[in-house]
């Protein structure tokens, strides 16, 4: 079972995903709202996840999903280099996500099982 960090600012989505992933046996943490860009990597380093699920559009943050993943890949160092990243969006922006450093992309709306199946491949 994986240690997962949810970076998702839709409260409902966050609630349901966390509950379902915990039912599946995963350990789930969420990125608190209103983090400053410089606070992201120290936060992630505090409890390094196996997988990050990152929404592209983060209205409650001062950065978007692309910026977060680019920073993770560029400045994360060896401690964070093994973190797998799944990005999601309501628009088909798979190529942009992969270019930013994501390992996989999931188009919204998706069912939790689709995410769980994808996570099992990571």
């Amino acid at each position, binding site marked *: 079972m994986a240690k997962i960090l949810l970076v998702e600012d839709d409260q409902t989505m966050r609630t349901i995903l966390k509950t*379902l992933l915990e039912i599946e046996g995963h350990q789930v943490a969420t990125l608190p709202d209103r983090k400053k860009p410089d606070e992201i990597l120290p936060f992630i380093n505090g409890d390094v996840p196996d997988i990050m699920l990152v929404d592209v559009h983060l209205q409650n943050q001062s950065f978007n999903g692309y910026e977060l993943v680019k920073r993770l890949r560029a400045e994360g160092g060896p401690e964070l280099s093994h973190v797998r990243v799944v990005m999601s969006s309501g628009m088909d922006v798979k190529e942009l996500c992969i270019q930013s450093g994501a390992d996989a992309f999931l188009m919204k709306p998706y069912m939790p*099982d689709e995410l769980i199946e994808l996570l099992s491949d990571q």
Partner: protein
Amino acid sequence: MNIRVAILTISDRSARGERADESGPALVKVVQQQGWQVAEVKIVSDDFEAIASVLRDWAGDNQTNTADIILTTGGTGFAPRDITPEATRSVIERDAPGLAEAMRSASLRVTPHAMLSRACAGIRARCLIINLPGSPKGAVENLWAVIDVLPHAVALLKESPTAEAGHQKLA
């Protein structure tokens, strides 16, 4: 708007204490994290009158309901003891088929077994009753499929002045 949610687990084995109820607590978690109030929680066996009695009690009438929404979990399948939809239909006054259709439609994206769900939804007085599957994962997944419309549904049932704004938001 304060939304009061009652959660009824329907399972012979959980009612006898032979199996821990995981679905009820999973739904409680979702309801609490949504900022809604958990008004009641109970476990009953797959017994028609036991289920109907609790639903009547919680739904009450226009003045006495203890919940705005009742979520049931369990008893929606094809097994002979699965009678939750029948017990629910015996107490509801108005059908709300769109909710059950939306849940089945969402579930069909991941499993053809969704066709075997007999879950229903409906209204008694000012209370919305929704049947969910018995597994914790199924219950939470199905709730997810309809959760965004529930505040508006409750506003309409309460004849809240904010209901019109909800119309516009969902349009």
